[in-house]
């Protein structure tokens, strides 16, 4: 896969170095959070407290931040409101049509109702059986091919490594914060204490010593896989095909295997296998760097939105094109 970085990037070059990345397979994530702890321990990141009021979720982390570089998101599927529960019950009792309005996602995911893009109805039995269900997903910096943060950084603190990963050098960062809104995924954040930005380095120091990143090392089910990007994409696409064979047709890759003009931020170094619409995981359906070189038309709309805020605002251009339906992966590669 071509990963040609922009000429403006400050980059480390080393001959023979490959693009390295993460493949995070949400279908085998058990929500144990070992990756979160291993990341903080290896990178000596502080415990920065818990986010209260996350509903009945076990997710007290909330979001990625300057001191949280892996975050296991607990996606509470179809946790119904009392009103919708009543409607569901009525629908079940009347037996009328076996349909009722889809139950919106609740909890921390402050995004538009994912189901709005659908036909506005869901199978009652399925919805009821899914009440309280979870999907677990370990979120991390995407190490974008077209990295908005890197483009926006005026100091050269953010660099492209020989592994095509994006690393922030805290000793160079001056805390300007331009990288924060430039990230379409809401990954980069500033430390509230010293103002400097912080994010996943894909364990650059461990890679230098031939070790895999701490999160991947600690993952008990290999939900997080680390390796040469090209190999990971191959593994991931085989995995999607196998899931389709097993009837999990909603499985698709997020951030890899797209047509060139549909790539998220030019393709993600850390990509995901998802089974639900991206918004349910707090991921944007469309993600471009505001100043990337291979600008696609839809990106123009994103500039304003992207500057407004982080992931929450990204949803503003959901309507613009790419969508929140489950996208089957293409078999051509």
């Amino acid at each position: 896969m071509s990963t040609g970085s922009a000429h403006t990037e400050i980059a480390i070059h080393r001959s023979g170095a490959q693009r390295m990345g993460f493949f995070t397979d949400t279908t085998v994530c058990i929500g144990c959070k070992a990756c979160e702890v291993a990341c903080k321990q290896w990178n000596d990141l502080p415990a920065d407290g818990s986010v209260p009021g996350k509903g009945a979720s076990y997710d007290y982390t909330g979001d990625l931040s300057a001191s949280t570089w892996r975050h296991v998101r607990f996606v509470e599927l179809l946790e119904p409101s009392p009103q919708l529960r009543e409607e569901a019950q009525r629908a079940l009792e009347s037996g009328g049509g076996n349909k009722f309005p889809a139950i919106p996602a609740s909890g921390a995911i402050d995004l538009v109702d994912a189901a709005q893009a659908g036909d506005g109805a869901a199978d009652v039995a399925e919805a009821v059986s899914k009440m309280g269900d979870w999907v677990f997903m370990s979120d991390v910096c995407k190490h974008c091919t077209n990295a908005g943060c890197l483009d926006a950084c005026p100091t050269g603190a953010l660099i492209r490594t020989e592994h095509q990963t994006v690393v922030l050098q805290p000793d160079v960062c001056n805390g300007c914060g331009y990288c924060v809104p430039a990230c379409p995924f809401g990954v980069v954040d500033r430390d509230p204490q010293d103002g400097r930005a912080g994010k996943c380095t894909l364990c650059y120091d461990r890679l230098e010593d031939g070790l895999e990143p701490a999160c991947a090392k600690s993952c008990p089910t290999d939900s997080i896989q680390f390796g040469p990007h090209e190999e990971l994409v191959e593994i991931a696409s085989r995995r999607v095909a196998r899931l389709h064979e097993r009837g999990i047709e909603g499985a698709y890759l997020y951030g890899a295997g797209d047509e060139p003009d549909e790539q998220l931020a030019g393709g993600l170094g850390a990509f995901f296998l998802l089974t639900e619409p991206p918004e349910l995981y707090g991921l944007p359906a469309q993600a471009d760097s505001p100043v990337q070189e291979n600008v696609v038309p839809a990106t123009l709309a994103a500039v304003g939105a992207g500057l407004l805020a982080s992931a929450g605002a990204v949803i503003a251009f959901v309507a613009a094109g790419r969508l929140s339906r489950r996208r089957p992966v293409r078999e051509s590669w």
Partner: protein
Amino acid sequence: MAEAHPVGFRWVMKAKERGARVIHIDPRYSRTSQLADTYVAIRAGTDVAFLGGIIRHVLETESYFRDYVIQYTNASTIINEQFRDTEELDGLFSGFNPDTGLYDRSSWMYEGGEVASAAGVREHSTESFNERTGAGMMMGNVERDETLQHPRCVFQILRRHFSRYTPEMVERICGVSREDFMAVADALITNSGRERTGMFCYANGWTQHVEAVQMIRTAAILQLLLGNVGRPGGGIMALRGHASIQGSTDVPTLYDLLPGYLSMPRAREGHLTLEDYIDTGGADRGWWSFFDTYIISPLKAWFGDAATKQSDYGFAHIPKLTGNHSHYATMLRALDGGVDGFFVMGQNPAVGSAHSGLQRRALAKMKWLVVRDMAEIETATFWRNSPEVQSGELRPEEIQTEVFLMPAASHIEKEGTFTNTQRLVQFRDKALDPPGDARSELWFMHHLAKRVKAHYAGSDRDRDWPIVNLKWGYPEHGEMREPDVEAVLKEINGYEVASGRPLSSFTELRSDGTTACGCWIYSGIYEAGVNQARRRRPGDIAAEGGTVSPEWAWAWPANRRILYNRASADPQGKPWSERKRYVWWDEEQGRWTGYDVPDFPADKRPDYRPEPDARAMDAIGGADPFMMMADGRAWLYTPSGLLDGPLPTFYEPVESPVKNLLYPKVGTDPATIRWKRPENPLHATGDPRYPVVATTFRLTEHHTAGGMSRSVPWLVELQPEMFAEIDPQLAADRGIENGGWMTIVTERAEIEARAKVTDRLRPLRVEGCVVHQLGLPWHWGYSGLSRGDTTNDLGVLTADPNVSIQETKSFTCDVRAGRRHRASTARLAGAALRGHDVEPSEDDPLAENPKEASE
């Protein structure tokens, strides 16, 4: 399992990838449920009814593995005429004595013989120190009816016993719909038989009930009926509550066992000399006929040159049991001022034991207390910040207990082994030195023993004999004088006394004092002087049978990965199916062979039939895979070994909101240990003040009573506060809001928690009424970085009669909105502080028979 055993769950996920179907049955929807193919919500504590329903279904639909059942289980064995089933006696088996609450088990025996349980005489005292019931060695020959038609054969008894456990009854008792029940039953049946196998995994959701042993027995009966024992992909996996709990029962920290599952001798006739002990403890048929070598070899290891035939190998000097000395019995004794001191190592009873308020009050009655831990846990700080101190009930200046807090090394700061549920013993090296004064358990016990020995050196008093003669020669190394862990392993493995040569197997053990061995089942772990548990060779996993990986660490016994694996072949010694081939008879070589080490005498022909008067292993036929049992069969029906019945019977939990539909006259298990004391009030069945069922659980983010996790900021931020999971209907009814405070109340205590109002708990419809269940994590206490109320304050002390485990997975309570208004355990302040006015515990053997126990 995903929730509490995430690393082990890796293999469940791998199995799932390979097509295994995963079913999760739990009162509460957890991370495990999310990852299972099927989740079934069940009322806490009704597992015997659920599994009994499946047993009935399997029998009625004739879905059992007939050849396996007839050949390998005691289904065909005839039971004597005196036996009466619970179906005949309204929920009681024959032999019940209402005055003592105990069973006389003589009527449970096989026709034509008495039988010993697998590990000798297993009965131990319950509330009092009861007499033996006559369960002993197998005498004579049992009678069998291989047509399974005889009305008194085990198969027919089993059928009648479970005949009323219909899907309808399961629905009314467990709150599981008929459809869900049938789906589980069908999945089990479909995945059993010649071509397929199914496995049960259980954890503390089964073990922490007064019916714990019988729940697991019910699963065992089902697995035997389905032919899922001794075969690859079968079995029952006991997921333990803590790393290496399996190891700590093998080389036990339990009061009633000696290493290798030998029963602890008792202070009474028949156990006072070695010969008597061997006579009553061993069996004269089956593998236990080698019992003498298993007890003499450890005596030789412990007492060295002093262990001679003349000194009876020092047997007279090892402690003899006088009654129930399990944790709860001991703590009640302490509460009455009967325990001077206490070592707490890797445990936190002030938070982790049931009825924690009572535990803490008992700690305050001791003279000294040694706590070894990595953090200053609640058990070490009870004297200054427990709820009892907060309420003023206990005053630090009046507590006499002297607390010694000793810093402990973590598992990465010491070397040693972990034994997992598969009996796989895995050695781990030390990664780094422990900080400061922290030391390994081995260091602590070693240096303590040396000091104790030095103190008694030269004493010629008879009672000091075991300390003076204790063989203690472990070499030390390094600046910290850490004892050599492999020297300990070598002793556990066993060695030839004269040469010091490590033994290769327990078959080398002798009863004449020429061999020493710390734990017979571990013999072979140090074969040829090599630490076999340290091996890390997975082998060619892709090869046929390659996943057995016999050179990955070491499993007891004799590196066998599946116990009773002779059952993986049919009576003629051929695999039941090619797909499930594992161990088989090789006629050409005249030996058993296969992917695993055969768990059977290697050259015993499948067609060998014992003579009627055969003894020891000669009495085990070539088609009798269960060679630890005197009759070579797996027991659907257990004539001896259990105190509360030869078959599992559904009893309601000790505290239950509903009556027992199957056995309304008895209700709860009559054999349960109930410590009736003013400080231990029990909720009556259906007490309207306590209508909610509570069940405790663990979170991935925390470990047991929090000593290892509530002291770690990275873990604390992931689960920062005590909470309770409550269903939306009950929450609405009580005005409890998601994220708001709620209080949980029992007669023992009231605790507060943040409410998690969630569909992960669903109200269940049970016999026409709705039962609400509450999920309570039990990780919090009053010390550490994250503090919160202690769930175990709520619990009551009751116990299973076989193993003295408490019932924390099901008890009744009530909930209300808001915070508690007083210290959590204040309501028992009066009762618990009566001190010497308290009547002696019914359990206390000293009280009951002072002469017997006095020196």
